[in-house]
């Protein structure tokens, strides 16, 4: 009698083990991109409400449109970012002779060419943001403020490699 009870109890426990709650895997919901009569446009894929922006987008947009004031801290930041992201192709001095170019990659134009010395800062910003020729976009790698810092440092590079000594007479005595 005891054995029979034990067998019944075991079978009961085994049966209870098979009773799972499948509500998590079989939910009453719309599948991805399926028809959804609940919504007015009849689709599950609902677009964002008009005017929605991601957190930080407005500040980022302000950084794009408003260049930061140039001081030594910004130029030092630009130098650091330039050496990391730009110098492999453009070279440390901006002549377009970085190590990648030495190994066969197409040479970028020199920052000291007439065209790029006359280029507007916004043009350089757009090139960093969207890429140009074989250069791809750096928008995902360099924040807008750092792009402006790099542009300011490029202006310093252009100043360094071609300085009008009439505008900086105090440096004349240091020339060989």
């Amino acid at each position, binding site marked *: 009698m005891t054995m029979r009870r034990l067998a019944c109890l075991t079978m009961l426990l085994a049966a209870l083990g098979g009773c799972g709650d499948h509500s998590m895997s079989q939910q009453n919901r719309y599948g991805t991109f399926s028809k959804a009569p609940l919504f007015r446009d009849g689709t599950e894929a609902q677009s964002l409400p008009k005017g929605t922006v991601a957190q930080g987008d407005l500040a980022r947009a302000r950084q794009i449109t408003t260049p930061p004031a140039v001081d*030594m801290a910004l130029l030092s930041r630009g130098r650091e970012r330039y050496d990391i992201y730009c110098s492999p192709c453009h070279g*440390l001095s901006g002549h377009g002779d970085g190590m990648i170019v*030495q190994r066969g990659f197409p040479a970028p134009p020199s920052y000291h060419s007439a065209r790029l*010395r006359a280029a507007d800062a916004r043009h350089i910003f757009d090139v960093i943001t969207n890429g140009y020729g074989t250069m791809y976009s750096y928008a995902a790698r360099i924040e807008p403020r750092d792009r402006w810092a790099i542009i300011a440092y490029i202006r*310093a590079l252009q100043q*360094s490699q071609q300085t009008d000594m009439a505008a900086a007479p105090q440096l004349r005595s240091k020339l060989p």
Partner: protein
Amino acid sequence: MPTEEMGNRALPQPADIHSRAVLAVVGCFLLFVGAAIAGLLLFLNNRAPGAFSPRVESRFPSPELQTSPEVDFARLEAAQQAQLSSYAWVDRDHDLARIPIDEAMQLVAGRGEHAYDAPQLRPALPPRVNGGMP
């Protein structure tokens, strides 16, 4: 199996071989091989005239492998840093000179709101051929 049939099978092959037929087959085969070789020679002579000339030994340029990337990079960096940290005349006639980058950064920082402006138009530097690499 009948005994008579087994007996017939056991008989040796008759001695009368059709030698003409054998010679004809061999002759046809040789003719076919000869015609194939002649056709191939004609084809190669028309399509690839130099196929039978002796091969000229050609040597590919050796690959530009870096045996020591660290040394190469250090050499390039040293050359470019020297360019960024020295004084030198670029065009003495036009009063243009190269100055260290730290001095240039101070000049740009001193421009204030015009720091991003394009530098005054001057004759461009000639393109550099070698950036310090061998």
